[in-house]
């Protein structure tokens, strides 16, 4: 089936504005912006997939509450995570995009059910620590 020419449609709607835009240059600009993003490509891709299935904002809030509770109840596990991250968690500080993405991905992808509480917590924090460094666990 023939595809419509969206450039013509855009010119029809937006006139000279759409006509004068150089599509190749601008698309390159978007790709460059993507390359400079603070979140690794695999994480962004994973976030996009997760967001299709669940409400990421709610998941993030729930996970942050759980993590803050874990660090409060078991302070000995703080050593598994970066100090700055633990501080932000406990003081409700503003997390970096990479930290937020790591929290969401860990919560969604790496839940353990058949293990003791301590084993689950340790596993969760170790995975989170790995993802926080931008690497796939």
């Amino acid at each position, binding site marked *: 089936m023939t595809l419509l020419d*969206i450039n013509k449609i855009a010119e029809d709607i937006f006139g000279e504005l759409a006509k004068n835009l150089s599509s190749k240059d601008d*698309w390159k600009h*978007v790709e460059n912006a*993507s390359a400079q993003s603070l979140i690794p490509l695999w994480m962004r891709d994973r976030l996009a997939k997760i967001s299709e299935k669940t409400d*990421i904002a709610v998941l993030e809030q729930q996970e942050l509450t759980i993590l803050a509770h874990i660090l409060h109840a078991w302070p000995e596990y703080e050593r598994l995570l970066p100090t700055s991250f633990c501080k932000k968690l406990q003081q409700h500080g503003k997390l970096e995009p990479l930290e937020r993405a790591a929290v969401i991905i860990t919560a969604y992808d790496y839940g353990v059910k058949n293990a003791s509480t301590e084993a689950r917590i340790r596993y969760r924090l170790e995975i989170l620590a790995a993802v926080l460094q931008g690497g796939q666990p």
Partner: protein
Amino acid sequence: MNAAVTKEPAGSAGSRQKLLYSKSNISQNQHVVNSAIAKTRARLHLDRIQWQNFAIFCTRFALDSAPEDVRALFIGKPSETPKDALLLAEICAVLVVRAEDMATATGTSYAYIDIWQKAIEIWEACK
């Protein structure tokens, strides 16, 4: 609507007029985009909130074809869509509405990836 005809905007012949619409003139670009959005919204008889919800819906519907950076803008609750991303959604919706009309009228189809590409170009020109 005649899908085959490309309407020339008034005054497009002069080079000075072309400069007026260049990417550097952000306020002029914003004016062009806002009036196109307003026309589409009026044609659909939607109030502002209804239109914005419709635009976010259209955008999320086509999110699979969007670049990853753009997808990240629409993560989370639809009601919490950032203002900046909302403008992109509205531009996208304007293009989708027109493309949908033309596709229905001519028995053709269109690709979301083309819509995204053009919408992002126009959005970038308004920032």
